[in-house]
């Protein structure tokens, strides 16, 4: 056969276009859009399913199962971890890791323990240095003081996250080491603020936010002190649950639908391609860490309100950070970045907490708790890894 005829023959002759395409080519791989969405969010779906199963089981096993009191208590215990897990989600989506979320939570909690006293004459903010106590500022008292205090806590958390972002983006330092360092700084600030546990939180504020909607309404005197007939069916809902839903809807959902949010996913998916697509990488990373700081700050604020004190507890900060990573993974977000979301992480946090609830009702020796928690965590994470068994093309395991 002759090679010259081949190399000289232009390939674009209309002989191709005259041929009909085979009817079966190409085939649709999957049925409906719903199936595609389900398959792509399998991690979150699994987490929600798992949570529903174990939480139902918990209520059946609990002597006071399905009561408002149990719901309220559970919601109180979950809120902070859920917030810290949401915080962790953002850097993870951008293929990073934030080791300072627990520290930011602790720092904001210590700050909040000064700002929420609700005292009529106002609150002094002190910190100790060189053995003496210094008064930093005095806030106005009453409700206005509390509102200002909440805003200050939000700003403090957000600022801490922003600093993390700046170190990562402009310092070009890997997130894991950058936040290890800044986390130590935030714990240091927390220790300045609260060398020993203490502080005061307005009692009404504590009561209103850590109980049911009914209690909230009666404390702040709305809806006939919560006795309005239409309000009755909603009365049993725990306030922290409402807060999680509101924060998710008002902060997370819009963020995810924004260009910046999309960019965060893009960075975690393929940073080079994201840059080549003309996305603003620096801004998105900065936003991810900043928003992480905000969520962690929300967690710290609530923790202070719930415990009516501030405590620069270093082991607690570390435990929250590590649990946040576990919650993110259980919630279906890949540590490689690019897939998942904060809603999944909320369910991850729920699952982690429900596991620890079981220790209470089954009366397991406290010394065994870490052992069991570890085993159960490993089992829970392995469920996500089960898909590996169904993979027929082993190359896909390494992508």
């Amino acid at each position: 056969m002759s090679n010259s005829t081949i190399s000289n023959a232009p390939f674009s002759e209309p002989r191709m276009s005259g041929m009909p395409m085979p009817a079966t080519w190409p085939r649709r791989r999957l049925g409906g859009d719903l199936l595609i969405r389900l398959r792509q969010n399998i991690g979150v779906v699994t987490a929600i399913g798992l949570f529903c199963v174990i939480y139902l089981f918990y209520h059946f096993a609990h002597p006071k199962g399905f009561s408002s009191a149990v719901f309220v208590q559970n919601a109180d215990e979950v809120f902070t971890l859920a917030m810290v897990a949401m915080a962790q989600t953002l850097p993870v989506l951008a293929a990073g890791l934030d080791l300072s979320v627990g520290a930011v939570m602790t720092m904001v909690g210590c700050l909040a323990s000064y700002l929420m006293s609700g005292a009529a004459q106002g609150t002094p903010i002190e910190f100790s240095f060189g053995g003496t106590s210094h008064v930093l500022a005095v806030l106005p008292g009453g409700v206005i003081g509390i509102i200002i205090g909440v805003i200050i806590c939000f700003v403090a958390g957000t600022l801490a996250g922003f600093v993390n972002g700046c170190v990562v983006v402009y310092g070009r330092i890997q997130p894991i080491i950058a936040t290890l360092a800044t986390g130590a700084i935030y714990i240091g600030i927390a220790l300045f603020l609260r060398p020993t546990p203490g502080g005061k939180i307005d009692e009404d504020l504590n009561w209103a936010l850590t109980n049911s909607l009914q209690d909230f309404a009666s404390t702040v005197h709305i809806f006939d002190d919560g006795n309005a007939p239409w309000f009755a069916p909603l009365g049993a809902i725990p306030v922290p649950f409402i807060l999680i839903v509101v924060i998710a809807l008002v902060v997370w959902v819009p963020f995810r639908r924004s260009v910046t949010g999309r960019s965060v996913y893009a960075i975690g998916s393929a940073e080079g391609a994201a840059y080549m697509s003309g996305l603003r990488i620096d801004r998105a990373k900065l936003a991810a860490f900043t928003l992480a700081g905000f969520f962690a700050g929300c967690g710290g604020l609530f923790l202070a309100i719930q415990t009516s004190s501030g405590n620069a507890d270093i082991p607690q900060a570390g435990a929250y950070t590590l649990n946040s990573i576990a919650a993110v993974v259980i919630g279906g977000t890949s540590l490689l970045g690019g897939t998942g979301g904060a809603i999944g992480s909320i369910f991850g946090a729920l699952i982690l907490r429900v596991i620890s609830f079981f220790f209470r009702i089954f009366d397991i020796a406290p010394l065994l708790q870490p052992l069991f928690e570890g085993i159960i965590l490993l089992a829970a994470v392995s469920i996500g890894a089960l898909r590996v068994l169904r993979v027929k093309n082993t190359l896909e395991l390494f992508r």
Partner: protein
Amino acid sequence: MVEESRVENTAKERDFLVLSGISKRYGGVVALENVDFACERGKIHAVLGENGAGKSTLIKIVAGVVQPDAGTMRLEGEEVRFPSPSSANAAGVASIFQELSLLPDLSVADNISITSPPRRLGFIDTKAQRRRAEALLAEIGCEDVNPLMRVRDLPLSRRQMVEIAKALGQKPQLFVLDEATSALTSADVEKVYAMLARLKAQNIAILYISHRMHEVEALADRASVFRNGRHIETFDWGRRSTGEIVQLMIGRDIATQYPPKPLRPKGKPALKLGNLCWERRLEAISLEVAAGEIVGLGGLDGQGQKTLLLALFGVLRGVTGEIVINGKPVRPSSPAFAKSPSVGIALVPEDRKTEGLMLPMSIADNLAIASLHTLETGPFVDRAKERSAVEKGIARLRIKVGDSKDAVSTLSGGNQQKVVIAKWLMTEPGIILLNDPTRGIDVGTKQEIYRLMRELADQGVAILFYSTDYDELIGCCDRVAIMYDGRIVRELEGTDLTEHNIITSALNIDGAAATSPPGEATHV
């Protein structure tokens, strides 16, 4: 003549983009030197040259990915600077790069609208985004892609079409395609041609870079040849013959494109497949490859050719049927098993950047990585053995390296591919599986690969060679098996091995042709 064409070019009023005196160095390496270049609206302008000639750098400068060290760039007479890809986008330059720039975890719709998604009240309007994706995909004849699918889950050829849709969606004034068709099937290439014709009619300037001469031949209105970082010549298409162009590109004449096929009796079968099935993607594959034979796998992209190679290399679980190697039935369970001396299979994978190479590791490390077990002394890798093996590998494929300690990512595409091939040759395989090994590499290197394949076959190696380029299959292979929908529909050999037969079988137009005896089909 060179000077003449430059003057003629820059003087034109219609020039859309004009580069003058552009230079770029990477460390000590000159990528572009004092380049003057211009392209017009409503023309398809081909940029030709071997890898390392400076085409990619030129394109990257136009797209704002790299900044020139010297020189100016004018867009419709205005001097411009593109410090980032987004600034180039904003000025109306849309580019499709050789390295795919899609985000694998995001959906097709997300990817298409990634630079400027449709918004409502400040947020991304997912419904509008989806409609937009559907419209753009329809425009390039890709209605079969569901915009909800993740890019990760699409085959390479579809991904490339998504990339084209994405660039098209930016409403470009200058459309840059860098090897944009290298992974496409011929049917898709036709669709891209039609799209380019429409863009041309809309008076849009198009820069087209491709190693496939027949594409350039079909499309180009003008062409510029680059060599060693310099602009050699720009001419209207047709004023130079293909032979002359090739000579301008490589500075030497290429007499024969493909090494001659020896006429010799078929050797003993090295690889024999019987009724191989996997997951409805491979159906009853039966094929024989003799020692010393090059067997091609042809057909439309995604008909099971790559899957077959993966199955043989032990990547797929649940393969049923028979694999017989040198008379012994084997069941490859992993690549580690497949490459072991008793089996002796090597696979040059589809994507050299992710499956072929460890990009940040050195050239030497990459070369030795598959044959480390032969380089051991006790439990340690023997440095001296490793060094001599690496040197042999570099020499055998004539890989152009400065220092084998350099990261493999510093090499040009063609040389990277040579490293992948050399790495596998160092395992001394009896069977070599090649998955589109010449995709996106220059003519010179391609020919070296063809020659090498024939050399290996002469030494008794059995080669199974998948290529999307029909020319290549015809020129290189002793026999070509055409796959369609997971089956081998026809085997072509000798005088039957023609472009026409490949295309008819690939499209499975005439079911009878698949079973008709050789000789008759040529008259269809």
